[in-house]
């Protein structure tokens, strides 16, 4: 089971998808493209809080990906 965690004003929204379900994977890929197109950064989260990896392209084998809105200086 894969999960895409999108940070938003409600805390976060989680979209789970079955890695063996082609339709669900296609939908997850579409979501990935939409969000990264809006400026979100997609990161494949590491296990146990270890550093993750920046995702330039959609990878259906990643179990947990986090979508961070565009950064801005404060």
């Amino acid at each position, binding site marked *: 089971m894969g999960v895409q*965690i999108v*940070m*938003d*004003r*409600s*805390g*976060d929204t989680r979209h789970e998808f079955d890695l063996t379900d082609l339709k669900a994977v296609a939908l997850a890929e579409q979501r990935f493209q939409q969000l990264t197109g809006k*400026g979100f*950064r997609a*990161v494949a*989260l590491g296990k*146990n*809080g*270890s*550093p*993750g*990896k*920046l995702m330039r392209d959609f990878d259906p084998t990643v179990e947990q990906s*986090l979508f*961070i*809105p*565009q*950064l*801005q*200086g*404060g």
Partner: protein
Amino acid sequence: MAQMEEILRALLRRALSEHGGEARVLTGVTIESGWRRFEPRLCAEFSDGYRAWQNLRPGACFAFCERHGVWDIAALRDVLLQEMRRMHARMLRDDAVERAGQRGSWFAALLRRVRSGLTRARRGRRRLPRMETAFRRHFLEESSEAWERGLQLLEEHLSPEQRRQYDASGYFDVTGGTSGKRYRIRQGSSMNIEQLDKRGRRVCTLCFMPAGRLVTGDVMLAQKVALEVFEREALKIANKFY
């Protein structure tokens, strides 16, 4: 920190017990100055108008300020509010688990009914104007839930060492993914990152956050991930204060 934590915990515990365990949203913190032989007091304000006070020992307050690097009342209030919200969310969660465990006992059920009756009676005496009540319920409850979700997300993705550090001190250290430099992320949403030298001394303060007014837990997690995964980009965006 431990002294201050005790003070905050005592204050929140009293608020929880006087509310009969019902969830209320913490909306503000004020510090009342001491007068003659009285100590200064910390006052917590809740969304239904309830207030609770606790004496504040100046030594504990000073240590807290030093730890969080805050030296003015407004910043201290912000940090206190964030810290108290974090503790309050955790206490509410523990309280809910405890109550779920007691649900089977008839005596506990009786107590719950008496408590909720008392709370309702108290609430009636302190009724806010209708519009204001609706506004508070809609916006503040929602933000409290978001606050908890953000905090949970952050805690899920801290390493065991970072989590231990965060629980003990209210901050955690991160190693830059590209440079290997050390950064300290403190509880907060802005001006809360410090770059440290090899001896752990502050080199500068960094300020960057994700767009969109996210809750603190989300902001801190985004800052951690950014420094670990795309440090260079984050540093380009960040404003630096020496």
